[in-house]
């Protein structure tokens, strides 16, 4: 890690406007990602990880909006960046891959064109040049017969192939940061591993930092150096991956780890997520006043009901947000 991180998020708050009410969805989230580093964000669906990611590239849609906090990318504050500059940044310096490769590509446009658009948008290439570069980009994500595939429409490709196309689009302009939002969740297990390997390989080679979002700790363990655990809009623990697997500090993290079958063999089993944590994530309208994990927590006490826990820094790196952390 260099002294100035590539991405620095501090005290990020995202609200949802429901009529006249403002409901807090993401609360005081802070983390940073160094150049070339892979950072993981883990949590159950609905905990705010995707929303956090979308706010990084300024794609939150009403009724969601960032209400406070700083998102600093390569020294620039993205929240105060003019719209045009932000748009130029998107795709060229920060790129994103989405969960659903079936619907994330425009069904009416050949995939080669959709990659080529990146070169036209960000490098001022002509369409003819861009089409050639698109074929190279397809080859770089190991798509067989790339010159033919470039002319194919998304519906003619398999899910894995489509996700490769998405990766080719995202990495077309050598971005500094790649946000991968559950990139393998919708794919077959065997294809998942290939896609993860591809992302890792390409990003390591190009020195691209990755924000990897997943509900799957197994994926994070393979890919990331550091990981943040999100629960109900809070970052509850953030530490190097090796530390967190050896000694989880937050009761939620502990629950997540216990719910994994055995590490390393998990692909063989039907994943049973969170079987050890009772209850479900509360709806946004019913977030507790104190610690948001308190209703499901085995260690909860009176202070957890009354008071939000602060971040407690830990010895090496990272922090935990719990009154009763281990």
């Amino acid at each position, binding site marked *: 890690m260099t002294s100035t991180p590539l991405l620095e998020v501090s005290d990020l708050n995202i609200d949802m406007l429901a009529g006249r009410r403002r409901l807090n969805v993401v609360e005081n989230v802070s983390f940073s990602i160094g150049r070339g580093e892979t950072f993981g964000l883990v949590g159950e669906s609905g905990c705010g990880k995707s929303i956090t990611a979308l706010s990084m*590239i300024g*794609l939150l849609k009403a009724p969601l909006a960032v209400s406070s906090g700083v998102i600093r990318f390569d020294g620039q504050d993205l929240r105060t960046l003019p719209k045009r500059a932000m*748009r*130029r*940044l*998107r*795709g*060229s310096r920060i*790129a*994103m891959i*989405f969960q*659903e490769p079936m*619907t*994330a*590509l*425009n*069904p*009416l*446009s050949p995939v080669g064109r959709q990659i080529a*658009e*990146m070169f036209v*948008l*960000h490098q001022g290439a002509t369409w003819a040049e861009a089409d050639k570069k698109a074929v190279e980009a397809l080859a770089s994500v190991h798509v067989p017969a790339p010159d033919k595939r470039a002319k194919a*429409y998304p*519906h*003619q490709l398999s899910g894995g192939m489509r996700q490769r196309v*998405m990766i080719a*689009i995202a990495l077309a302009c050598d971005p500094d940061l790649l946000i991968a939002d559950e990139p393998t969740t919708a794919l077959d297990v065997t294809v998942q591993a290939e896609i993860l390997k591809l992302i890792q390989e390409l990003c390591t080679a190009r020195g691209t930092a990755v924000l990897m979002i997943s509900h799957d700790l197994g994926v994070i363990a393979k890919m990331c150096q550091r990981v943040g655990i999100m629960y109900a809009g809070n970052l509850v623990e953030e530490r190097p991956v090796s530390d967190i697997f050896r000694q989880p500090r937050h009761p939620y993290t502990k629950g997540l780890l216990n719910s994994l079958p055995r590490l390393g063999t998990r692909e063989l089993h039907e994943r049973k997520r969170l079987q050890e944590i009772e209850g479900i994530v509360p709806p946004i309208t019913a977030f507790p006043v104190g610690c948001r994990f308190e209703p499901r927590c085995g260690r909860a006490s009176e202070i957890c009901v009354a008071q939000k826990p602060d971040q407690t820094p830990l010895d090496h790196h990272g922090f935990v947000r719990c009154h009763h952390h281990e």
Partner: protein
Amino acid sequence: MLRFALRRLLQMIPTIVAVSLLIFVIFSVVPGSIASSMIADGRGANDPKLVEKMNQEFGLDQPVHVRFGKYIWKLAQFDLDTSFRTRQPVITMINERMWATLKLAFAAMLVAVVVGVPLGFIAALRPGSLFDSLTMISAISGLSLPQFWLGLLFMYLFALTLGWLPSFGYGDGGLRNLILPALTLGVAPLALLARTTRAAVLEVMSADYVRTARSKGVSSFRLVQGHVLRNALVLIITTIGLQFGSMMGQAVVIEKLFSWPGMGSLLIDSVALRDIPVVQGCILVIVLWFLFINTAVDILYAIIDPRISHE
């Protein structure tokens, strides 16, 4: 692509045969003899000899299945029989009137598309805004108006009171006579297109691939013209095709109102005269045009959306 177009065109044939059968059946179950009812229309005494003569002349004395066989055989040769009244071939009579109706219908659709699609589009870009609300209230009102009444009001206002435009007739076939009927006929499809376009654009805007496009750094303008418009077009075009059907129906009323010399007024006049071959012919030709336009729309649809012809 060409094979898809050909297949769609061939698929029209069974529908055409079924429609012809249906029309024939409807008009052969007419209670009582057509000839006698025609003559008894107050235009002549119910003379049995006259009835007999007419029945023979038009082959109405033959059994139903023979008549149907002849009817289909003639249809296959583009022969729509002879009018009871004028003794002219029906196809000639229709040919004289058809183009006026098509001119009216296409002009009305042009009005609807040129106004309705942009309205729905702008409304969808700012959902919930004042413009959106006003457009949608106007659209549902437009769908609730009796069209011929609206035509009557247009006629009263623009022709009879202000004197800007002729109140009826075909004139020399120029634009002046076309404006009022086309506007009147265009209001309902306009309203429906505004609604459909809005819904289609809203649906496309929330699609994942639009989010992908935005994450690529595509500008709003480019997003709309390159990604949204084409995808929304698929739904809009389908609506346009389907609207031709109800427009052909409404055209009958509007032609009558504005004394427009089209197939619609021919149909209504023939109904009043009980000139069955002409009625059958008009209905068949209207349905054929509707089918043809929808087939054309399907083919256009396949050109826009590669998923269709691949299935």
